[in-house]
């Protein structure tokens, strides 16, 4: 596993304010074909919301997605990556922190997201797995 985080990350991450609703984030995930929304304030990363967070922290708790704000459910104190980090470092973080997605930060500004799928694809570019679209339905 060689290469840098910038080579495998999904760039142009979806960023939203903490005051936005969970419904708005879900619509953005659908329209942009992603599973992660970065929560930002003044261009700086405050936290992250994934489709799993919405499932567990909103639906499982019977909260209303239209009135629940991202600020109510986001994960803060995230492990983050830099674009120039080695992919190997990203894989170690994913494993050690037992997370599926990590934000990528350059000069304090979010510039991408690395997912466990990106790492699986990178592991062997000629493997069968690399032919599964990273954007394939998650089923």
């Amino acid at each position: 596993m060689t290469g840098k985080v910038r080579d495998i990350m999904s760039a142009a991450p979806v960023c939203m304010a903490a005051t936005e609703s969970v419904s708005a984030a879900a619509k953005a995930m659908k329209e942009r074909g992603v599973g992660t929304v970065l929560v930002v304030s003044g261009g700086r990363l405050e936290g992250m919301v994934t489709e799993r967070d919405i499932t567990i922290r909103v639906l499982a708790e019977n909260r209303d997605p239209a009135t629940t704000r991202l600020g109510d459910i986001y994960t803060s104190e995230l492990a983050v990556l830099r674009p120039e980090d080695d992919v190997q470092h990203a894989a170690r973080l994913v494993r050690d922190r037992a997370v599926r997605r990590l934000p990528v930060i350059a000069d304090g500004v979010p510039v991408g997201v690395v997912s466990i799928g990106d790492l699986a694809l990178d592991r062997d570019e000629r493997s069968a797995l690399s032919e599964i679209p990273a954007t394939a339905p998650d089923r």
Partner: protein
Amino acid sequence: MDAKVRDVMTPGPIGVDYHQSIGTAARTMRDWGVGAVLVVSDQALYGLVTDRDLVVRAVAESKGPDEPVGPLSSRDLVGVRADDDAAVAVALMREHAVRRLPVIEDGQVAGIVSLGDLAPPDES
């Protein structure tokens, strides 16, 4: 990759009824620590629903947690046998562009195998 599907799958199987609520499906995923559950209708396998399905097919469409989960299911599932090589599961995922397969043993669903089960990130 010499492992069999049964060696890497998440055994279970964990399921919900078609008529149970979206909230119940979400709590089932939370309580079992899984990202997908099978959907059963009239004691037969109807489909599969993932945490992403709950978000993009329910929350994004303004469906509430009290509505039935069944209509959110993905149908026409592709299955794999428990005694197949893990490489067979990889090939099926590639061919059908899916990330999870129900695992069949003795005519019953024995579990689910996911892309993450087959390709855990490592340092190689």
